[in-house]
């Protein structure tokens, strides 16, 4: 069996809200082997996005442990987590989260610059061409359609060749055809770079394309099904 890139042990998340403490995740244990495509599904409020945040080190677990590529994410401070992401992870959001004051090219080049890559812009150009946006490099997010913005976001996430790609409902804000196209790009990138892909989705079609699907309900794993063998 391939060594896991992500290991969650009894991971818990409790948040303080205006209405008091809310338990989001109640002890999730999960292993994600290298190269696997894992779909996280479940009804709204089941904790899918929160689980993805914990995997990306964007949120701090309140219990249990999370190991990514052998590193204990729960033991790292904010800056160490940022460095870890810069070297090993790419993240795609439902709302794209492109930086509005930067062109498509600059958006994609930013993580490469942060990682100190001298050829940041050349690689960013290459990545944008790979997602079919060779002609839109100097456009600002506001000058692009939702589908194009998400492709820029994908290129940005994939540009540093991350071992782990996290995607939070990447087609949630797109129409069906555009969403389909984006998923082709996402899976294409995963295949090209051999990354481990974990995505949160509501879409059964999208879930069907994953190697494995974990269903969450009320912050717990409700079902864990392998759809096809990991390559």
């Amino acid at each position, binding site marked *: 069996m391939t060594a896991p890139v992500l290991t969650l042990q009894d991971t818990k998340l409790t948040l303080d809200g*205006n209405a008091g403490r809310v338990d989001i995740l109640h002890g999730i244990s999960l292993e994600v082997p290298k190269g696997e495509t894992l779909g996280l599904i479940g009804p709204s409020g089941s904790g899918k*996005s*929160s689980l993805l*945040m914990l995997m*990306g*080190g*964007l*949120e701090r677990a309140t219990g249990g442990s999370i190991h990514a590529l052998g590193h204990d994410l729960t033991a790292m401070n*904010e*800056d160490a987590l*940022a*460095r870890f*992401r*810069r*070297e090993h992870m790419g*993240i795609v*959001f439902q*709302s794209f*989260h*492109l*930086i*509005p*004051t*930067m062109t498509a090219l*600059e958006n994609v080049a*930013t*993580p490469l*610059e*942060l*990682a*100190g890559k001298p050829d940041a812009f050349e690689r960013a150009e290459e990545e944008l061409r790979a997602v079919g946006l060779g002609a839109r490099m100097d456009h600002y997010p506001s000058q692009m359609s939702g589908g194009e913005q998400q492709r820029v976001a994908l290129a*940005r996430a994939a540009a540093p060749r991350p071992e782990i790609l996290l995607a*939070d409902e990447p087609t949630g804000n797109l129409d069906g055809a555009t969403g389909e196209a984006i998923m082709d790009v996402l899976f294409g990138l995963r295949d090209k770079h051999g990354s481990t892909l974990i995505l949160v989705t509501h879409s059964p079609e999208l879930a069907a394309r994953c190697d494995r699907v974990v269903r969450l309900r009320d912050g717990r794993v409700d079902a864990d099904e392998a759809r096809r063998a990991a390559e």
Partner: protein
Amino acid sequence: MSAAIAARIARRELRGGLKGFRIFLACIALGVAAIAAVGSVRVAISEGLTREGAAILGGDAEMQFTYRFATEEERAWMAATALEVSEIVDFRSMAVVDRGDVVERGLTQVKGVDSLYPLYGTVTLDPAIPLEEALATRDLPGAVMQQVLMDRMGLSPGDTFRLGTQEFELRAALVTEPDSAGGGFGLGPRTIVTTEGLNGSGLITTGTLFETGYRMRLPDGAVLDDVKAEAEALFRDNGMRWRDSRNGAPGVARFVDRIGAFLVLVGLAGLAVGGVGVSAAVRAYLDGKMHVIATLKTLGAEGRTIFLVYFFQIGVLTVIGVTLGLMLGAILPLLFAPLIEARLPIPAAFGVHPGPLAEAGLYGVLTALIFTLWPLARTEEVRAAALFRDVTGGAKGLPRGIYLIALGVLAAMLIGGAAWLSGIPTLALISAGGIVGALGLLMLSAFLVRRISRRLSRAKAVRGKTALRLALGSVGGPGGEATSVVLSLGLGLTVLAAVGQIDSNLRNSIANELPEVAPSYFFIDIQNDQLPGFLERAEGDPLVNQVDTAPMLRGIITRINGQPAREVAGDHWTLRGDRGVTYSTAPRDGAIITQGEWWAEDYAGPPVVSFAEEEALELGLTLGDKITVNILGRDITAEIVNFQVIDFSNAGINFIMTLNPAALAGAPHTHIATVYAEEAAEAPLLRDLATSYPNITAVRVRDAIARVADALAGLAAATSYGAAATLVTGFVVLIGAAAAGERARVFEAAVLKTLGAARGRILLSFALRSAILGAAAGIVAIFAGALAGWGVMTFVMEATYRFEPVSAIAIVIGGALATLIAGLSFALRPLSIRPAGILRAQD
């Protein structure tokens, strides 16, 4: 490495334009402009004083004497030292125009000059004839007079008037007098005649009150310090006072320095008000950037990189704001130079002065750093999770220690810089403490208002009162504008309230308190042989309530216990020039002796003196100390045997020194008198006394008070300008706060409309929340402003303080109205937008 990347990202971020930073720029630019403008005017005047020093003084150096002309020895020294020596005589007198049935009298400051006057600068006359021609003796000696006195007395060139017993022919109006600012505060308009022409006036005799000045044109290369040292060594103990062109108008210079420094402090308060706006603008900007910051974190940016990204952006904006402010602050004085110069008694050197601009720039940069560092430090704490859920960065508590240390260092630099550069460190430190204290009070007030509003919004009493409940909920709710509005408005109002309190107190102390107790007239130069007749006329008048007289001499305190007085007590005002001295066998009626005993009526031992208690305390004098007073060139050393309370505020006869009569036996002197009379008795009394004793000068106290009040009104006007700059900044900050809240109001209005609220009700709710915040800020402002007013009046002006409710309430109502207007003007757009578009965009 991370700095270079941060700079690149910052540059890209700035492409978004300066839209969110208009308030930031306005706050910094206004504060810097106000300080730079005040500083530039201050330096322009100082440079004018230096550049025109010789003309303002009337010579390269001047030796002054009181009551006497220079001795042969002194004249010989001056003749040997200077290329030219010009002698002037200066005194107060009454100009009299006798038209038979009507006799006009006007108080005037007379200057008797010689043929060399003026050594420097020029006298301008109307008609434009040479001064020499105007003063020449034809049938009568000639004279020139300021237009204001000519108008008052109905005189035109060619008319005659009398000074003492000498008739003069008025030849021209005096338009400019180059050395007018050097002489200090004159109580009457100027008349210039020749000293020779005054010989027959009977006004310059031994014992009468006059001053002489010997202006010297020194050879090129003469070192003023050396000449001064020599003159002082030889003649200082004879009562000689030295002035030179480096400090031609010390009174004006001191006044300009003080008022300038005070205005810079008001400007700094304005900058602090602006700082609150700057902080709010940066907070709002960073709130808007939350997703970008979180995205950068997601992409691997460390906290330090993020901090630098926004630090660079704020740095660029600060430089733009400071530059704008400096340009404005440099240009404004140039634009208004003619107006300012018209109100100054001296020429000012207007131009671009780097010193005050650098000072204003430094204050601007430090203020921007202080007020932005806290919100900037918070960027480090923004978690990438902000992309997933609506968290505001979890910014609670204090920033990291390093930022707190940096904040402390920056604040110390700002306060230390202000204390050092203003030249009035105590007032600067008190002001800084006041601003910090006011900010603390306002933060507490904002916290309480939010807590109380939150409580009240849930109270049963407000159920059904939707507009009020919404307003309370909004003020008390999370993410509201309550804190920034209360802080910015409150600090602005506090500064205004303080200035208002000081202004009202100053005006009141002049307008109300003095005239109630002040005499109608001061009479000076009453000769010994005139005193009985004078008293008979004055005391015999049934409408005269009280007449006080005292012998009057003038002397300079030269030594304290044998040591030069200035070495012992520094630059105390009692040592600066000559002071009135009197003698008496007994204390005056109602005198309060606080320490020691009065001498026996027949005391004939060594000289003894009664000294004013408060001044003695300031000079560090104790009973038994010996002071040496030079009177008419003669040193008298007297032992202090008692202290008495001297209250200068009653405008009566007050001397800081009273000697035993034997000590001054034989010294020529005159008498001073105060007459307290019904207003109806004033004119006839003056007419009779002036006719009988033409040499006596009468000073109408009401006129003198009006002149002092005029001078203070100028001071009040200057502080008002400073306050206005603060007010404008405060209003800009307010608009900023209102504008920052607009986005939230647009959404709120859309939701409320969807739920069925009519526009009127929404508007009422918006108005109520502005009123609540305005009132909270206003109440603190009244309290803090009154406290500041009390501090300044008590410790700086050394006057009594009384709370002035009208000024305070007007300022608070103004503040509440300003918030209301700013709030409502930004509420109109939200009300006019259809909800659908807003709500769709929020999805």
